[in-house]
């Protein structure tokens, strides 16, 4: 059974920005699903609609078998949401934040105190529990946020870019937290991210979202497996970089090519055979390679394959 079903969701914001353009995907119960895409692809809008905050112009969305529009009140009882902005009241202590959240979900007395204490321990905030959240680090506020989303034992958990803005070490710690949640109590998790590494590590299935629609979906392994061949990364030295992309046009065995700064990334049918040809073609244009790596395709290559640009490029393109 699917815990989340989004069908043909369309949403246009006032001012004409089309955030969703026929978004369709479904998430089997008890699994972790990733929506992967650059900023502005529509991931957050999708989460807002699925969590009853916003309404789609057309299309249907069901969470835990309830229509998010008609049964909004019941949907809200069954979901936990970690939004992009952390939503922690920084004037309250961690414990007070959790207690208020629990009360809103109808929890009382001892039940609430025990659950709050348990969650504080689970996310490693028991020592900071009675300090005002203003003094928490970004990672601590995020962990509190996740604890708040879990207080009422939701069936479906939404994590909207839970690690954006966190330091790399904190991000890895957060991944461990999310891994621990995986599979617990039949929890279904929808995670949005623009970190490929994050999706690769955490999700069972994913959909790549581009301009409000799904352009590819499957398991990370399956998506990578569909890409035959290898991935070649070339670090370019000084010189005119503009020609790098066109230089590889027509080179035998080379498929998609993306240039990002001094890094050239190409998907090729056969790594070992392609490298000399690639280097030759670059040299013919006066471009010197500093280093070359051949690897199995990563989600980065999947992204490149379906959208024609690297995820980093896409991100910068929409946030500049």
């Amino acid at each position: 059974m699917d815990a989340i079903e989004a069908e043909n969701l369309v949403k246009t914001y006032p001012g004409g920005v089309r955030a969703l353009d026929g978004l369709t995907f479904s998430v089997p119960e008890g699994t972790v699903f990733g929506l992967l895409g650059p900023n502005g692809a529509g991931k957050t809008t999708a989460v807002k609609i699925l969590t009853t905050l916003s309404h789609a112009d057309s299309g249907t969305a069901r969470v835990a078998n309830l229509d998010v529009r008609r049964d909004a009140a019941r949907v809200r009882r069954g979901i936990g949401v970690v939004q992009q902005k952390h939503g922690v009241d920084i004037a309250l202590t961690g414990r007070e934040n959790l207690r208020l959240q629990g009360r809103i979900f109808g929890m009382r007395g001892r039940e609430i105190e025990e659950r709050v204490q348990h969650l504080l321990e689970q996310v490693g905030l028991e020592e900071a529990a009675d300090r005002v959240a203003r003094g928490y680090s970004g990672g601590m506020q995020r962990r509190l946020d996740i604890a708040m989303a879990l207080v009422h034992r939701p069936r479906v958990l939404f994590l909207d870019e839970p690690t954006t803005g966190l330091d790399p070490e904190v991000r890895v710690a957060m991944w461990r937290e999310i891994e621990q949640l995986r599979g617990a109590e039949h929890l279904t998790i929808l995670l949005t991210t623009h970190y490929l590494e994050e999706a690769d590590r955490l999700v069972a299935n994913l959909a790549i979202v581009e301009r409000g629609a799904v352009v590819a979906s499957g398991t990370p392994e399956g998506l990578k497996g569909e890409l035959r061949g290898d991935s070649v990364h070339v670090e370019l030295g000084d010189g005119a970089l503009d020609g790098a992309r066109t230089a590889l046009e027509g080179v035998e065995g080379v498929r998609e090519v993306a240039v990002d700064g001094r890094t050239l990334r190409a998907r090729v049918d056969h790594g070992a055979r392609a490298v000399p040809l690639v280097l030759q073609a670059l040299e013919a244009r006066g471009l010197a390679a500093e280093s070359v790596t051949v690897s199995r395709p990563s989600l980065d290559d999947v992204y490149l394959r379906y959208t024609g640009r690297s995820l980093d490029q896409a991100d910068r393109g929409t946030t500049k």
Partner: protein
Amino acid sequence: MTALRHGVWMMQRHLLNLWRQPIWIAVTLVQPVVWLLLYGALFKSVTRIPGFHSTSYIQFLTPGIVVMSALFSAGWSGMAVIDDIDKGILDRFLVSPVVRGSLIFGRLLNGTVIIVVQSLIIVGLAIIVGARFPNAWGIIVLIVLASLLAAAVGCLSMALALIARREETLIAAVNFFVLPLTFLSTAFMQRSLVPRWIQHAASVNPVNWAVEAGRNAVLPGTDWGMVLTRLGLLALLTGICVALATRAFGAYQRAV
């Protein structure tokens, strides 16, 4: 029932918020005191104007300052809503089973608590500097009037916050309305001594409804009919504004 309970929890959150920022408690409590003493001193000689009925200006002024303080703090209540929006707190509540109206109601309760404390301080201070309010019930009525006006204005401020979602818009609106509404009332000057056009404006100005009824209630010779009518009018206005503010959530959710 649930709305009431949720509202009380929200009020607790806001009061804790205030409690943990002592500078705001100081500002909240000191500001009306400054107004009372400053205006009281500035316009002291008003009592010498022929036709001015009261012999003590502070006594005349106190109900006006009580209402004005309530009006000011209510006007700014949307700022805290914008802060909640910016921090993601509002969105977190909106995807939870919290009763929408209680988000408004909690802030109104919080505002009322502050207004009651402020008003008691103002009245107490006025008594210390020589004002006399023989009608003790009148003081309660005055505070109820001020709270009702504050609830109405607070709702409008919060509705604007939800719709505009920008501090600049709210600041502009508050500055545009609050002081003029105060001066288009009889808060500082007796009705018969202000220009006719201000008298006309004052009769349809809810701030003036509260000021006049409040003054009438605390001073001898209270016209209870008039006071009750004004109470009714303000309650009606508050009801309309609460409905408006609750509907503003819809506008907010369409825009996010």
